[in-house]
């Protein structure tokens, strides 16, 4: 099979193809998973670029006018401050070397680096008193986002929500610790602690996943509990459907 080239995919995305080419590309995409993946990667790159510009514009304007303007004081470590090392990002085996003295943020987010598909990037929750081995890990695997929830007590609720924002959130029960991450174009990047002001409803684990990501899987203790695809969640053993997401239970 002859695959589509980037020029076709980009023009498809930007609606720049003439009607004949549009049909040709649509027919190919319908039957070719490789080209759909490539399209998703380009779309992710465009999303990352656009999202980056939004952040850039906002801060550039605030910094402006020769430094005369000032930004309001930000809480740097909203929920993590009292729970040092509650959430740790591990990047490969070199995690410990990446801790930066003097940076409270870096002290908690070890690494904070982007990773290509297949690299072992994880957010690991530790030191949860009622479940010392509990963890949430987020990684890219074969082009899909794979969220693994492990060793939480039976009955722990996991709320999975799809959000319009490009930044996902993984949060421990009670919102005690959380991490935000961006998924785009073969890139998983933890962008910081906290939920950035987004309300995290209810108890239990909360996973807020960007609706625009192409594929996602939520595993609970080694079993697939939910799949995210095409902007929808398909959950196994669903406890409830709250309208803005689904709730499943550990051991349910």
């Amino acid at each position, binding site marked *: 099979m002859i695959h589509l*080239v*980037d*020029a*076709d*995919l*980009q*023009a498809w995305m*930007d609606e*720049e193809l003439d009607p004949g080419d549009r049909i040709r590309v649509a027919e190919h995409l319908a039957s070719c998973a490789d080209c759909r993946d490539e399209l998703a990667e*380009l779309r*992710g*790159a*465009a999303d*990352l*670029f*656009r999202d*980056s*510009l939004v*952040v*850039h*514009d906002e*801060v*550039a*304007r*605030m*910094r*402006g*006018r*020769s*430094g005369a*303007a*000032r*930004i*309001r*004081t*930000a809480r*740097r470590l909203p929920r993590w401050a009292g729970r040092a090392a509650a959430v740790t990002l591990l990047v490969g085996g070199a995690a410990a070397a*990446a801790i*930066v003295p003097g*940076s409270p*943020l*870096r002290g908690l987010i070890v*690494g*904070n*680096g*982007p990773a*290509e598909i297949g690299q072992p990037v994880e957010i690991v929750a530790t030191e949860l008193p009622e479940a010392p081995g509990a963890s949430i890990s987020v990684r890219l695997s074969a082009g899909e986002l794979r969220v693994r929830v492990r060793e939480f007590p039976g009955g722990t609720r996991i709320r999975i929500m799809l959000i319009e924002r490009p930044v996902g959130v993984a949060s421990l029960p009670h919102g005690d610790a959380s991490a935000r991450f961006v998924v*785009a*174009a073969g*890139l998983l*990047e933890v*962008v*910081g602690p906290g939920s950035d002001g987004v309300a995290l409803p209810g108890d239990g684990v909360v996973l807020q996943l960007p609706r625009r990501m192409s594929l996602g899987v939520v595993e609970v203790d080694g079993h697939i509990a939910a799949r995210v695809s095409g902007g929808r969640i398909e959950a196994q053993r669903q406890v409830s459907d709250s309208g803005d997401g689904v709730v499943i239970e550990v051991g349910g």
Partner: protein
Amino acid sequence: MDFQTAYRELYPALHRFALRLSGDPDVADDVVQEAFTRLIDQDLPLEEARPWLFVVVGNLFRDRVRNRERRARLLAAWPPVPETPEAPDVSVERAERVARVRQALDELSDRDRRMLLMREEGFRYKEIAEALGVNPSSVGALVARALKRFVRAYGTLDEADDSSR
């Protein structure tokens, strides 16, 4: 063309474009003002003024960068003047992210940067091609390649940032 109408309708997007090119609101103000000043001497309908202004802003910024680099070379022997301290209460996380975005943008070629930013402003491939002097049929491939370069630069910068600490 009614200049006031052109100014009112085109200024926001043009200033945004200039701000993204330069990262500096003062520079953006200057180049956009200069571009509109030059527009007065042109006799262009509004639909032609829009791409014309973006090209002029891009060229003015490019000239500024060249002048800055030339001045930097001339001043290389002099001790650096301390930078204006950054607003102390910008969150560390946000400031780092923006710095990386800025660096990734700066790593793109002038053509790639302008191409992506014009695309963000809603220009069609034909307009981008005319503004940048490339073949319209190659814009799709060039945009895709530039986006991938941005993602790669953004990721590489972060890795370099971590390893240098």
